[in-house]
C-alpha cells in the first residue's frame, strides 16, 4: 500500500515532506560534488563551478 501525503492529518504529512526534502537536499549537492570532481580532471576551474552550484542550491532556504 502506498502512503498518500494527504492521508492521516498534518503530522504525518509534515514528516513525509521533511523526509523527502532531506533526501533531495543531500542528493543534489552530492551529485554536484561528484560531477565537480570529474570536471576538475579537465580543468580545476570547472571544479569551482561545481562549488558554485552547491552554493546556489543552499540558497533554497532563503526563497
Amino acid at each position, binding site marked *: 500500500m502506498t502512503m498518500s501525503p494527504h492521508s492521516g492529518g498534518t503530522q504525518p504529512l509534515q514528516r513525509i515532506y521533511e523526509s523527502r526534502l532531506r533526501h533531495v537536499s543531500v542528493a543534489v549537492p552530492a551529485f554536484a*560534488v561528484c560531477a565537480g570532481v570529474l570536471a*576538475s580532471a579537465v580543468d*580545476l*576551474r570547472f571544479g569551482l*563551478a561545481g562549488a558554485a552550484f*552547491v*552554493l546556489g*542550491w543552499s*540558497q533554497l532556504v*532563503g526563497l
Partner: protein
Amino acid sequence: MAGEKKRWFINVTAFTFAGAATSGLVGATLGGLGGWLYPKRSEAFGMMLVFALVLLAAARVLGWRSFALPRIRRQTREVWGKYLGSTTAALLWGLDVGLTFTTRFTFAGVSVLTALVLVYGDPAFGALLFMTFWFGRALPAWIAPLLMQDANATPYLLDALDRRRRLFRQINVAGLVWAGAVMLASMTFSTSMG
C-alpha cells in the same frame, strides 16, 4: 490538467533562462572588471585573499563569527504575479533574482564567488560561475513537483524547509570547503609548475 502542466513548464523555463541570462551578465561584468582592475601577476596573492574569505564566510555561516554582509534587504516583487500574466511574472522574477545582488541572499557564499571572479578576471569564467550558481538556485523550481503531490502542499513544504535550515547551512559550508579545496589544489599546481 495538461494545460496546467504546459503552463508550469513554460513558466519555469522562462524563470530559469531569464535568470541564467542576468546571472551570466553579472558574472561576465565582474570578470571583466576584475581583469581591468586587478593585475594578472598577483593572482596567487588574490587567491590567498579569496581563501581567507572562504574561511571567514564559513565561520559566519556556522555562526562562529558575526558580521554584516554588504547586501540589499529586498525581495523580488510578489505583486508581479497578481497584475501581470504568470509567464511574464516568472520571466521578471528570473531576471530580478538572477541579478544576484538586487535581492537578499541568505548565506555568505556568494561573496566568495564574487571575489573569485574578480581575481580570475576572466569574463567567460565569471559568466560560467554565476550561471552555475543560478542553476543551483533555480533547480528547486524544477523538482518541487516531485516533492509535492499538488500546489496545496506548498505551505507544508515551506514549513519543512524552514525546519531544515541547519542542513542547508551545512550544505553551504560544504560548498565553501569544496571551493577552498579546489583553490588550494590550483595554488599548489601553479606553484609546482612555475
